[in-house]
């Protein structure tokens, strides 16, 4: 992947979801990550989303864990 993919992901999603959610509502996002993707890169994407969209954001992350289990995380600033 390109080194700046975290920003690309965030910017793309921001451009799309701004048109689909009322300003007063939390923006709901589900992210499904790559194989064994590092926690730091996942957090980087979420941080980018928060930085641009503000705190009114809800993110559910899904990742396929090393033992074929789900690692889920929720974030809402």
């Amino acid at each position, binding site marked *: *992947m390109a080194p700046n993919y975290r920003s690309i992901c965030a910017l*793309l999603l921001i451009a799309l979801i701004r048109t689909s959610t009322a300003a007063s509502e939390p923006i709901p996002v589900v992210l*499904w990550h790559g*194989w064994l993707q590092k926690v730091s890169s996942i957090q980087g994407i979420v941080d980018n989303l928060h930085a641009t969209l503000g705190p009114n954001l809800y993110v559910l992350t899904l990742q396929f864990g090393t033992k074929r289990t789900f690692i*889920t995380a929720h974030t809402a600033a």
Partner: protein
Amino acid sequence: MNDLVEEACKKVGADPKLARGYNAMGLSQGSLFIRALVQRCPTPQVFNLVSIGGPQQGVYGLPWCPDAYALKCKLQRRFANNIAYSPLLRNIRVQLQYWHDPHAGSDYREGSTFLADVNCEVADKGNPDYKQRMTALQSYTLVKFTNDTEVLPRESEVRNSWCGMNFINSI
């Protein structure tokens, strides 16, 4: 993989903050899995779907072996060809769930229980719900990394037609 998509559907459906719908984004193989989630999971509604470097048409090469002509890579590919569609062996690595040998059409359609299904390539088994759910999206965006060395071939990342649909706004 089918079990995990089903599990993800339950998790998303049980989350009250997503009950009114959500935006979906996948990274790498997660892009393929979240598309399967969109196609198979009837609720909640999905507004937009973004695929970042996802192997939408599967892979025919291993991430750590980008040189298709190197002997080591040829042997690994041949090994994967032999096990990817075997009911006993295809679950040993998650990448085998979306292994797509272009030279083994019938083996792929019969033995790929995940990719061939979500791409509507299983013989005599179409699923109209898949098309209906994808066309209900406000947008579907595909991103390809031109220097990607993990998804082989890279063109898989921007496959924009399947299940009788054709998406033209890919980048």
